[in-house]
């Protein structure tokens, strides 16, 4: 080739990174600028000027600390539930499915292809007043006449758990599948029983998958507002719902930007601490 070899990787990176710089980095910088603007006195709606009003952050946080708390609580719960459901599933596919392994793996991803909004709305209808579950449980006196399954925080967490389950299952499967079965056999040879071998060999070796899966679930869950909008009520609003309505309904860009930035910073701090603690850098 005519150009010096050292330049090849940079030439390959150039178009993609130019794109990411323009449409990812620049917008984030711009978002930071927007977050400290204030309304132009006597201006139209949506007209703002830069006044370096860092008070926006404090104001935005104080006004919405409930929704912030809820976002992180719901996302944590959904992540824990998804991990609890997905780990045995991934384990079964990796070790107990024989020749059906590939088919089962396809089936984990398959629900993805039906729009996730359709599936969330399907849950709403299945668990709603007109569905068959609620009247059935009522006639069996398992739940009271007034109890509903939708429009509750439980429904929101359940919806998020369901929607992000494949994001948890796939990385778990990938790291479990890589485990050499001989290491588990070796534990057995050294007089570890099944549970001890699982706890001391399988679990530590699957840790990269646990870290990747929990991140891939927690990050989108913390910023999600669709599950809360469809399955929740005004009492289950998350920070995503607030950002969305600040943008579109109230046209309050600085507050929306300050909230977005706070959310992103909080997630990045949590993720960094978590990766440090889990001790895996394999993701990046």
């Amino acid at each position, binding site marked *: 080739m005519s150009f010096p070899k050292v330049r090849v990787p940079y030439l390959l990176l150039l178009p993609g990174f130019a794109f990411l710089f323009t449409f990812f980095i620049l917008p984030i910088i711009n978002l930071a600028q927007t977050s400290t603007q204030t309304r132009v006195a006597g201006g139209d709606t949506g007209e703002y000027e830069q006044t370096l009003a860092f008070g926006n952050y404090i104001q935005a946080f104080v006004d919405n600390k409930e929704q912030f708390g809820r976002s992180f609580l719901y996302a944590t719960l959904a992540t824990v539930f998804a991990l609890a459901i997905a780990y045995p599933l991934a384990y079964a596919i990796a070790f107990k499915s024989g020749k059906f392994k590939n088919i089962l793996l396809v089936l984990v991803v398959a629900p993805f292809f039906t729009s996730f909004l359709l599936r969330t709305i399907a849950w709403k209808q299945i668990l709603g007043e007109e569905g068959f579950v609620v009247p059935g449980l009522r006639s069996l006196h398992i739940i009271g006449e007034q109890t509903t399954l939708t429009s509750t925080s439980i429904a929101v967490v359940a919806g998020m758990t369901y929607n992000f389950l494949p994001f948890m299952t796939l990385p778990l499967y990938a790291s479990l599948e890589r485990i050499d079965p001989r290491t588990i056999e070796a534990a057995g040879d050294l007089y570890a029983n099944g549970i001890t071998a699982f706890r001391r060999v399988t679990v530590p070796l699957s840790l990269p998958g646990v870290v990747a899966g929990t991140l891939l679930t927690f990050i989108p869950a913390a910023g999600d507002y669709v599950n809360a909008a469809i399955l929740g009520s005004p009492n289950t609003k998350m920070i995503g719902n607030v950002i969305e309505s600040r943008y579109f309904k109230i046209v309050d860009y600085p507050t929306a930007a300050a909230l977005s930035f706070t959310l992103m910073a909080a997630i990045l701090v949590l993720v960094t601490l978590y990766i440090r603690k889990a001790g895996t850098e394999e993701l*990046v």
Partner: protein
Amino acid sequence: MSQKIKDASIPTIPVKARFSRWFGRNLLRIYMIFGFTYLFIPVAYTFVFSFNDSGKSNLIWKGFTLSNWQNPCGAPEVCKALGNSIKIGLLATIFSTILGTMIAFAIGRYKFKGRSSSNLLIFLPMATPEIVLGASLLSLFLVFKINPGFWPTVIAHVVFCISFVVVTVKARIASLDPRLEQAAMDLYANELETFRRVTLPLVAPGIAGAALLAFSLSFDDFIITNFNSGTLITFPKFVYVSAARGIPAQANVIGSAMFFLALAIVIAAQLVKRKRTR
């Protein structure tokens, strides 16, 4: 004679251990059945209600009909929304696959200054919540007085698809046997020929998988699209907007058809792969 050898070579397992092992195996099988049922309940519900003779609001079962499947564009806007989603999905897939594959080759194949910060730049969009990506991009478009719509949506989709393409293709490059390329060089192929006739065909399945992933991510995206599409309607947006007054059964038809189409593509790809490895 052979019986004897068998008996001698396999140590007898105590009954209790055998039972607990059997139980362990079947417990996981039973669990798998429950797990997959849970995953597929809403898919099945969507499919069943695509046959509902429901009129406008598809909430209560009113009787079986094939008319929704015979006339999938019967509900206003639904096919326009689907067409937009497919167009955006294809464009986003093409751009993100090309850009992402180039980055994956650079990071996966070369040691260079700034490699780890390149990895970080790829990881960041994945660590950013969709709502922040969508909102920040919209603010940028507003600053430059670009109206949200078709192309801003394509750009937004490329942003979040690139990282997934890079990760997928990079994994494939990392699993390549370097001896295959060395063999090509030994047979007097120059760098370009080696790349075209050995490396690229070997990485191709990874690129195809990445493209499929990019398309499904783009096709199903709602949050980022909602911020950057303005009045343009896509399929997920159509579903979200019509959820308030009831989704027409045609949406269920399209959702189910997409499910079966994607399943067919993935299974066909698996079959081709199995045939090749044989």
